[in-house]
């Protein structure tokens, strides 16, 4: 995309963000909100560049965790969704269980998770995946079931085994659903990784937030949130782009 196309495309976002920034600054000054509760944009901006420590290792670790969590959630989610759509038996057995797993507040079982999977990058990924996999399961399963009888008949006429019908007909047909879920999961993986870091961590943006919140250094916490959102937006953007390349017929919103 050329620069002018980019400008044309994203000026509404830019405008909205600018408006929000202005409102934020205004609120902070007009309502005299305490900086430890809501620092001004300027303070956050400063914290972004002068946090007193280097952001890079934290950014790097959290990014890694998020991407890992995303892929785990995507792979496990598609696999489980396919299993659920595969047979009503599996669906009846698995779904209540998956709903159960998904409704468990992960923060509540933090000690168990800590003991079972430990702490570090991989466990945090697992945590993120646990938080992000469910939308993929549901959307995959629903998408796989939303195929017209005619299309299935087509597959059956050519004596295709069930797995081929899934591979060649159901799954491509469900791609808009799956891609939609991946967009959701891209953001859920971000939250998941941070929650994972909250449970136990030695580095990462979640670690920074937890640390600074306690000393009421909210500006740095907000700066971390901005980094986190930047990672989230980037991952989301990559998913949108990948979707467009991979399944151009399944056009959707961004």
């Amino acid at each position, binding site marked *: 995309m050329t620069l002018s196309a980019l400008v044309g495309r994203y000026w509404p976002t830019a405008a909205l963000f600018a408006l929000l920034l202005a409102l934020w600054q205004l609120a902070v000054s007009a309502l005299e909100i305490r900086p430890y509760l809501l620092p001004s944009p300027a303070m956050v901006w400063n914290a972004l560049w002068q946090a007193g420590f280097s952001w890079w290792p934290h950014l790097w670790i959290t990014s890694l965790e998020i991407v890992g969590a995303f892929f785990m959630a995507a792979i496990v989610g598609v696999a489980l969704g396919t299993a659920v759509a595969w047979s009503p038996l599996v669906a009846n057995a698995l779904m209540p269980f998956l709903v159960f797993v998904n409704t468990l507040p992960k923060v509540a079982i933090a000690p168990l998770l800590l003991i079972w999977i430990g702490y570090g990058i991989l466990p945090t990924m697992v945590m993120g995946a646990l938080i992000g996999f469910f939308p993929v399961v549901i959307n995959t399963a629903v998408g796989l079931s939303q195929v017209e009888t005619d*299309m299935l*008949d087509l*597959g059956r006429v*050519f004596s295709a085994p069930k797995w081929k019908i899934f591979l060649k*007909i159901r799954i*491509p047909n469900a791609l808009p659903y799956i891609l939609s879920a991946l967009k959701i999961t891209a953001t859920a993986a971000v939250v998941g990784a941070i929650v994972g870091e909250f449970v136990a961590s030695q580095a990462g943006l979640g670690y920074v937030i937890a640390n600074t919140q306690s000393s009421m250094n909210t500006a740095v916490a907000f700066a971390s949130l901005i980094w986190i959102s930047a990672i989230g937006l980037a991952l989301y953007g990559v998913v949108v782009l990948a979707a467009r390349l991979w399944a151009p*017929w399944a056009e959707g919103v961004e």
Partner: protein
Amino acid sequence: MSTSLIDLQKVGMTYEAASGPVEALADISLRVGTGEFVSLVGPSGCGKSTLLRIIAGLRPATKGMVEVTGEQVTRPIPDIGMVFQAPILLKWRSILRNVLLPAELAGRDAGKLRDRALALLDMAGLGGFAEKLPRELSGGMQQRAALCRALLLDPPLLLMDEPFGALDAMTRDDMALELLRIWGETSGARKTVLFVTHSIAEAVFLSDRVVVITPRPGRVAADIAIDLPRPRTVELRASEAFGRLNFDVFRALTGRAG
């Protein structure tokens, strides 16, 4: 017509729906011999598509017996080519890849069949459209692509549901002649074809027999042997025999056959 490939005995079909049952077929008995070209004609909604689906093993009949190659049909039967009433092209695949789909589904090497697919597309007048997506084709073009797909694996049994319905008269005639060639009219080994059409002339021109179905619930109203010489030629259409057979079918259809 030594052996009978398709054997239907008192087949009935009732669709159950929330809004009440619909009896689509009542008591259909029909045999189609190996190598025979049989057309089905009948009013809209009389159950022709339903019958084709039952024979293909896609839906179970609710009554009667269905046998293909001597075996009871309980699930989709192998080695058939089917043209559905709608094109049902996969929108995410190019036309060529849609035509190659049966190869992929049946576990055959799609790469080897590429040339055949392209030749079929050429035959159907879709030479330049192999790389287009389905939605970039006109209705008639999509239907032709679906025909190519059904022919890809050169199946011995073809079930065709109004394959030329969306075509203009001329293209239709061309395709009919192509179909006869593919069927094996002049060569030795003939395929078996069950062909649904709304055109009486087309049915008579193509078939060994024309089976006329009554309005819903469908029954066999008449089974008319078409004893015209083969290979059939366009000139045949001007013949008196052709006209008479057309009229016979017409009479059976309109119920004036007595």
